[in-house]
């Protein structure tokens, strides 16, 4: 309580004395822990390699430039695969994410005691594992190649999309739903008229956002053999073909810039 009486006049401070002291103590402990950790890390660092870093970086830079431009003829197909992995993966994920989102949202779930926990479990479990690890698992199951990449991206994206969509469903204006219900509409009609129009912008936003992320993620899937441009990246790295690596990085950059541009345009058009 910051209002105090002093000699008959009311004085106001932002915090009481004990609150200020507590804040001071918290800041002090925080700083002490930071300094201590800094020291520990510095003890176990091999400083020789760190001091050496600029020279090595410069060495790699000179080897990697100029990029081997003629190698681009071999990259068309892999980058196309990468874009396909991302796009197909996102589409498949959305097909699964929408029903799961409706089952997970508190206001649309058929049963809050049975169905909702299952839907939430699916969301958490698919979200918690990185797509690279999904790809490793899937390569063991369905063999290496583009399909493993598509499925890995799809599984990883289900939880992400479902979570954002179900949050959008829970935030809808309930009176619009009431109004549609009051006309005598069926359960499905209420969904199509009362809920879907309200979540459409959120859904489109989530879809392009996830597609954007998936393009980045699918560029590395090839590192473990799940198709796409990562395959070329990994083989070039293995033979220390730095001019090829730099060209691949440029191509990935171009793809990501393109996806940013597309998703920005789509979002503009919808909202």
């Amino acid at each position, binding site marked *: 309580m910051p209002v105090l009486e002093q000699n008959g006049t009311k004085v106001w401070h932002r915090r009481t004395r004990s609150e200020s002291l507590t804040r001071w103590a918290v800041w002090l402990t925080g700083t002490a822990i930071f300094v201590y950790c800094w020291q520990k890390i510095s003890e176990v660092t091999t400083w020789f390699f760190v001091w050496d870093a600029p020279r090595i970086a410069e060495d790699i830079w000179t080897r990697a430039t100029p990029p081997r431009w003629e190698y681009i003829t071999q990259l068309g197909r892999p980058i196309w695969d990468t874009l396909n992995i991302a796009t197909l993966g996102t589409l498949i994920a959305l097909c699964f994410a929408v029903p799961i989102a409706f089952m997970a949202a508190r206001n649309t779930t058929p049963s809050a005691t049975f169905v909702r926990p299952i839907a939430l479990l699916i969301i958490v479990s698919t979200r918690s594992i990185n797509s690279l690890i999904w790809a490793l698992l899937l390569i063991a199951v369905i063999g290496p190649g583009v399909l493993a990449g598509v499925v890995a991206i799809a599984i990883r994206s289900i939880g992400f999309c479902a979570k954002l969509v179900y949050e959008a469903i829970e935030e809808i*204006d309930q*009176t*619009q739903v*009431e*109004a*549609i*219900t*009051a*006309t*005598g*509409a*069926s359960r*499905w*009609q209420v969904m*199509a*008229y*009362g809920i879907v*129009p*309200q979540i*459409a*912008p959120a859904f489109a936003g989530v879809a392009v956002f996830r597609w954007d992320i998936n393009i980045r993620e699918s560029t590395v899937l090839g590192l473990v053999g799940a198709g796409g441009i990562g395959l070329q990246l990994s083989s070039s790295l293995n033979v220390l073909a730095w001019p090829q690596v730099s060209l691949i990085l440029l191509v990935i950059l171009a793809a990501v810039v393109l996806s940013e541009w597309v998703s920005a345009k789509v979002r503009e058009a919808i909202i």
Partner: protein
Amino acid sequence: MLRLEKLVKTYKTGDQALKAVDLTIPQGQVMALIGPSGAGKSTMIRCINRLVEPTSGQVWLEDTELTGLSSGGLRRKRREMGMIFQEYALVERLTVMENVLSGRLGYVGFWRSFTRRYPQESVDEAFRLLDRVGLLAMADKRADELSGGQRQRVGICRALIQNPKLLLVDEPTASLDPKTSRQIMRLICELCAERGLAAIINIHDVALAKMFVQRVVGLRFGAIEFDGRPEELTPDVLTTIYGEEDWEATIEKVEDDDEKTAEAEVAAL
């Protein structure tokens, strides 16, 4: 036409919103439901079409008892009860036409409604209604482009295209300015008269209610405190419904204001 028998609603929190309400509304009667906030007005309206499930008691619409109906039966009966909301409750991202046609959802199948292929009679009726409320030119606009008064007119069209026998109207004017409020109330009452509809209108503005309706029911703490003609609403009665207040001065003043608005309207024409 509509008969409530010992209607009780107790919320999970233990609040008793309605205490054994008995009420009968004959064919074609427009009734205003007044009372302080939290008196159970909205609950009562929502218990009739079961947007809120009543705890006990019965609701008779003509000779059907509504509280015992299965979900399919309830949907068929909901078609006969149009509802108008305080915040209009239009689907903001759909067009005016889609919003009006959504009143026919109870009559068409899922795929027809999903692909927006409504029967031509419904479309004709939608255009007729929009013309009646003066919004024909707006049919293709999105609902969120309209002003408050326009949105409420669309809400009225949506309720009427159901071809209802009864209108449930929840605070139709609470979000509107005084002039638009009067226009909307006049429109609702005219349309009820044209079609011989019964209506229950929840309303806060006592003066406005007195101007337009044939019967006023006062609700206080979930029980009916007053039931009579608008002229019988004396300051004493208002005190029993709402509590102590200087009614003479405020109510008269509102009516004066109203005359001025009416004059201004005439002048504007």
